[in-house]
């Protein structure tokens, strides 16, 4: 596989395995490593300038986030862009957001409404500029304002991981169906309006609306029940 230039860096205070993870994550995110590309331990060892153990740690974490494929008796490869993964991750992400929104409504948490307004404006600016990644970052940041205030470490852990999984699919070259960005903007605005109005029912309704296409695609195409 053609590898990006050396990622070896002077040893800092970080764990080698974290550096390996970050370097691989970045390389996948920026399409230096492309879907389907084979990852060989010895080449990664040379590229990253470290031994097999931290690299294996990093690969396992990447596999758990769905960024690479590791399966018994097969080569390790960069995962193909897979709309089912994006859809299923969005499904879970939507539930995490609903949990956060409904719990924070009416709490008068200081600064939350202002921070939400800032991200709402960012989403709107992204829509005006036709800048997909900017819209996506804005929506992510909008909901992060809420999930970070709940004080539930399990929620934060899940959201962090799912955000990492979703980030990949916002990179250039994602082939998922085009999204009506105006409609996304309206969705975020409805959630924000419900939040400002202290109306949990309206917030749930706005979130259902925002995630309706995700749910529809899930039920029609991506659901995989464990029993028939």
């Amino acid at each position, binding site marked *: 596989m053609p590898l990006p230039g050396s990622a070896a860096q002077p040893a800092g205070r970080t764990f080698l395995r974290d550096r390996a993870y970050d370097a691989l994550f970045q390389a996948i995110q920026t399409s230096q490593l492309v879907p389907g590309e084979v990852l060989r331990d010895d080449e990664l060892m040379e590229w990253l300038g470290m031994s097999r153990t931290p690299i294996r740690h990093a690969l396992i974490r990447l596999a758990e986030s769905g960024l690479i494929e590791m399966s018994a*008796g097969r080569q390790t490869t960069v995962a193909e862009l897979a709309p089912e993964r994006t859809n*299923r991750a969005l499904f879970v992400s939507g*539930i995490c957001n609903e949990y956060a929104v409904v719990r924070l409504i009416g709490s008068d948490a200081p600064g939350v409404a202002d921070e939400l307004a800032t991200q709402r404006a960012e989403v709107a600016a992204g829509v005006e500029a036709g800048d997909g990644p900017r819209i996506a970052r804005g929506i992510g940041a909008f909901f992060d304002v809420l999930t970070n205030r*709940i004080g539930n470490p399990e929620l934060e852990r899940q959201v962090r991981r799912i955000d990492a999984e979703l980030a990949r699919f916002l990179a250039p070259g994602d082939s998922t169906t085009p999204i009506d960005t105006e409609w996304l903007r309206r969705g975020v605005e409805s959630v924000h309006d419900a939040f400002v109005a202290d109306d949990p029912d309206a917030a749930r309704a706005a979130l259902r609306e925002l995630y309706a296409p995700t749910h529809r695609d899930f039920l029609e195409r991506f659901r995989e029940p464990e029993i028939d």
Partner: protein
Amino acid sequence: MPIPKPTRPAKRLLLRDVVFAKLRDAIVSGELQPGETISESEVESWANASRTPVREAIDRLAAVGLTDVLPQRGTLVAELDPQRASSSFSLLGELLAVSSRIVVPVATATQRDAVARRTRSVRSAAQLVATDGVFDVLVGVIGNPRLRQAWDELVPHVLRTWTIAPEHAPTLDELDLDGFAAAVTDGDGDRTEAVLRRWFDAHDAHPRTVLDAPAQETI
């Protein structure tokens, strides 16, 4: 060790996944006690596996918070963390309630029946969330592998705390099991969601927001 009935599609298992599952189940059941040392060589002979898969399994246990890796002392089974169990329980409720609302209306009769049938023998909260319990089967019916992954990460913290320290386990008060079975059987997503929320909310001690009073000790 009793072999659970397979409800999930058979798929080629990696040895590290098998070792991981064995260790996780031993930690959840209390067979491996909080604070107990996990020695790689003992696991190798106990699980009849070689060093690499054992190491990888042990790493994953640390990643999901079931073990702690301490300098000079090796890998220890994590101490019970009722706070973490409480945070997990709170999120599990939302995951299950919302996804049930979405999926129950389109589930097949066989799927709905598989869930409803399991409500008949429920005697404890642990039986609801355990492998092959009502909620576990419902998650299988929902059929989102990413939700399954999150569920499987959160449940061991809850189940382990309830098993080893039963005073933290919620009662079945506020759980309308018959109403739940009927709602699922009727394919009524909104009613299923409402019954689930009522039970989870009644036993959710996680503070509503960070601004609320400090977290309570019990779940």
